[in-house]
């Protein structure tokens, strides 16, 4: 007899949540309060600041809604949610019902302001990406970060070595020139840390004509070229 009642209760009775959840959070964001509850919560806040929890909790959806509007490649949305939450906190703590504005309206403005201030401050960092930031996560939970993918050109090492070898060769060849020829080359090409001078400037410096400098330069370069190719 008893068993039948148990069976009936099992199949027709109201479902009760199993056990008591010790610490539970909502699986989704809490819905907004209806007007009476909201009015009551606002009054409670007026008495005691620490009653702000309810108002904040039930307006978190607003934070997410507004943050999503500002979500672009620049700032992560998680950061925007945090900043938006700050805006909401400020709104709830400075809201004055006598000002004839709905809390949701006032809070929206505060949240937007907070997010805009943050974005403006961070616009310098907008395009930056962290090298360690995970790009992709595979099934085993292994992360792929930018630092794994960044590479260098194949000849990055040999390029440096070749260049310093070339520099040495040129320097040696130039030092073998006659005094005047060497001067001309050093002045024209800015060797030894000087600035490059035009043919006219060099001509004036040496007291000869620009066209002569041009001819001399051609000859010297040819001479250098022979020297260097002979060595190599």
């Amino acid at each position, binding site marked *: 007899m008893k068993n039948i009642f148990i069976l009936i209760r099992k199949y027709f009775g109201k479902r009760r949540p199993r056990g008591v959840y*010790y*610490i539970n959070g909502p699986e989704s*964001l809490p819905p907004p309060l209806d007007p009476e509850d909201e009015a009551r919560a606002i009054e409670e806040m007026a008495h005691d600041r620490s009653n*702000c929890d309810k108002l*904040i909790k039930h307006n*978190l959806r607003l934070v997410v809604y507004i943050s999503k509007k500002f979500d672009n490649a620049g700032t992560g949305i998680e950061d925007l949610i945090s900043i938006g939450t*700050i805006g*909401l*906190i*400020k709104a709830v703590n400075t809201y004055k019902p006598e000002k004839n504005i709905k809390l949701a309206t006032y809070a929206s403005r505060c949240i937007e302001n907070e997010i805009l201030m943050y974005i403006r401050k961070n616009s310098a960092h907008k395009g930056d990406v962290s090298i360690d930031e995970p790009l992709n996560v595979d099934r085993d939970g292994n992360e792929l970060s930018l630092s794994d993918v960044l590479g260098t050109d194949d000849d990055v090492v040999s390029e440096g070595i070749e260049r310093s070898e070339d520099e040495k060769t040129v320097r040696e060849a130039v030092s073998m020139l006659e005094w005047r020829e060497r001067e001309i080359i050093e002045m024209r090409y800015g060797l030894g840390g000087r600035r490059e001078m035009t043919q006219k400037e060099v001509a004036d410096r040496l007291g000869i004509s620009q066209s002569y400098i041009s001819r001399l330069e051609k000859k010297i370069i040819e001479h250098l070229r022979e020297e260097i190719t002979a060595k190599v």
Partner: protein
Amino acid sequence: MSLTNGEKTVSVTGLVDSGNLLKDPFSGKPVIVLSEKISNELFGDDAADLCCAFCGAAVPERYKEKIRAIPMKTVGGESLLVGMNIDGISVGGKKCSAIIALSGDELSADCIVPAELL
């Protein structure tokens, strides 16, 4: 397990509690609840301000983009915890993705860890 906030890393012993089903409502990440002592170690002088963030205490600049509001329902009632998206959490040497919450209270351990993080 260890928690990292900026340059500071704190080593703690967490208590795994299968009854901790807290989740950050936005990201769905599990939440680790910190005792007051560990909050002070991790955040230093800012810990007190952070605990009262919802009541209007000024949130220090560097935490503005890390703060979260975590609604909590317990046997004793409902409340709202101050959550933080800190720089690094590792449990048993493995990095994990979670939010920490400042309880502002003394707990039976350094922190209470949800079972799913094991």
